[in-house]
């Protein structure tokens, strides 16, 4: 049966899958990790809809499956087939990166969890499970930003961007589940368009530069 505890478990699962999407060097498997985190995300939306008896969220969950579980990973995989499977060596090594991440994410989670009242002073947000959901969502958001900052590979940048968007969508779910379905769908459709155009450009970048290392895009550093 779906309980408030299962929401928190799913949140933890999302964070772990997102860390995997960031840390796995093989781009194909990293995309699968992203796919799994998206499945958990849809799970959270469904459980939240069930718990709060908010039927309009089911439609959002379906769109989410369509976009985050099917379309975006498909686009990524299709592009990854054209390029080398392994990502460009990031700035810091695996062990150090995981250690930094664990410390950072725990700290972020604690800080957000403690100071929720500062940025979301509503009754619902202060109680479990929304409080935990919100703290987790902010953590995923920070993870996305960290990915954008620390990775050079074009695909990893895209993954960072979609992780960040996942975080914002979770925050949206926790803070504003009353939004109209059309608005939610509009926000989600944006993600597909962004990923499509980024990958479209990246394909040309790979064709012309012969690399997916964004640090080597340095034509304009004058």
């Amino acid at each position, binding site marked *: 049966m779906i309980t408030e505890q299962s929401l928190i478990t799913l949140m933890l699962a999302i964070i772990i899958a997102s860390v995997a999407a960031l840390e796995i060097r093989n781009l194909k498997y990293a995309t699968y990790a992203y796919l799994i985190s998206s499945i958990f995300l849809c799970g959270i939306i469904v459980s939240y809809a069930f718990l709060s008896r908010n039927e309009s969220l089911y439609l959002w969950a379906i769109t989410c499956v369509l976009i985050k579980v099917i379309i975006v990973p498909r686009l990524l995989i299709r592009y990854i087939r054209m390029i080398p499977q392994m990502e460009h060596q990031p700035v810091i090594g695996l062990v150090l990166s995981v250690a930094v991440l664990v410390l950072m994410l725990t700290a972020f989670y604690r800080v957000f969890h403690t100071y929720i009242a500062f940025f979301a002073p509503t009754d619902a947000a202060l109680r479990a499970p929304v409080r935990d959901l919100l703290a987790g969502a902010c953590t995923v958001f920070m993870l996305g930003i960290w990915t954008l900052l620390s990775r050079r590979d074009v695909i990893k940048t895209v993954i960072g961007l979609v992780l960040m968007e996942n975080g914002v969508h979770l925050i949206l779910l926790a803070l*504003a589940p009353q*939004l109209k379905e059309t608005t939610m769908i509009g926000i989600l459709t*944006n993600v597909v368009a*962004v990923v499509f155009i980024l990958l479209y*450009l990246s394909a040309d*970048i790979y064709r012309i530069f012969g690399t997916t290392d964004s640090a080597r*895009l340095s*034509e*304009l550093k004058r």
Partner: protein
Amino acid sequence: MTTDYSWIPLLLIIWPVLGAIVIEICAAVKKTVWIERVAIVFALAQSGLSLFLGLGVWGRVPVRVDDFSLLVDGLSALMGFLINAMILLILLFSVRYMKHEQEQGLVSTRRHRLYYTLILIFAGSMNWTVTTNHLIQLYVAMEASTLATALLVALYRKKASLEAGYKYIILTVVGMTFSLLGMVLIFAAAYPHIGAEALLLSKIGHVVRIIPRNVALLGVACMTCGFACKAGLVPFHAWLPDAHSEAPSPVSAMLSGLIIKIGAYALARTVTIFAPANHGIVLFIALLACISMLIGIMMALVQDDLKRMLAYSSVSQISYIFLGLGLGSYLGIYGALFHLVNHTLIKALLFMSVGAIMYATGGVRRISQLGGLAKKMPVTAFCFIAGAVALGGLPPFNGFVSKFSLFLAAGEKHLYWAVAVSIFTGLLTLACLVRAGYLVFWGKPALAESQTNADIREVPRSMYMVLLILAALCLVIGLFPNLLYPILDGAARSILAVCSAGS
């Protein structure tokens, strides 16, 4: 009997997209010669429609379309007309320019078509951005305008243009995600009190009074960062010089004239409403704007590439607009909107003049490689210098009037340091642009005379007429600033009306 205008806003969003579809159909039935004509006819109709809508709105009641959360008040009507009229001028300039690029082998037939399709889709997204009354729709529409222009920036598919397009899209999308976060925080804090109305832009004045101060500040900070990213303020400007310099010149005019203005528009709709209640916001934006205008113009001074120089000066000029909007006072908003209109005209003029230079010289845009063009291209020379003087803020051109209003507005709020920085930046701008104009048109060419200058001549009439129209507008507005007063006054008052709503 009153005229019913409520059908226009939605049509303005759908119409350009329809035009894009017609272009694709033309291409499918192999009538490629029609493409430009279709684009221009659609843009002409759009400008006419938005002018008609504006005439109905200015000085009267706003037009509402509640089913789609659209609302056209004085500001929306002003922006709508500005956008559609500029797109028309840019398309007129593009016809010969892009044909030339196609003949040079820089763009393929397919991309030539894509160019017009994307500009029309962009027009639709911009019309949506300025007519929506819904906070989240504003975000979605702004994202749509980014996506439509990303491929235009990378149109040449060269190394540099791909890199510029990639940077542009990543930075703007990340910035806009932050602004979405800010919007959600503000919505969540206001929802328990006023329900779904918390999402309406026309109700933000009410929201300001009911949400706690710390949430308001955090939300405003997130939104300001996002909109500043879109507008290219320092330190969020990394995409701007690259995108402006690598895009085709008419697209640079569009980026500088319209895209970055949309960041300012969004700021006016949201952050400005919060400013009167929180002096901290005024200071924060004034500081951001002053740093940005100074760094922008300093970077512009050291550029050798004409388009990069203009791009950095855009960073500096958009900061003037942010400064005025951040003040939250009538004079500040009035001056900022006035400068917004003026800067759109001036920057479009300057970028298209550089486009004309590139057209005539086969793509040369380095100041050090150009020189002595005044005799060969007198119209372009006149237009560029007019734009340079107007941007520097010398009377009798339009830049003077709007900058002067902004200085007064900042003085009124006792931000004398901001006035000093703005005046200093204005002087540097004048020096920077006039120097560049002098070197390009009267200086000694660095390359051998025979090598480059032999067959340089004035650009075709369809191109220089656009430049002349823009230069004439700059002069007319400078000489008779009262012409625009009723419209700008209505626009500024529509923001203040939101501020005081619900009190």
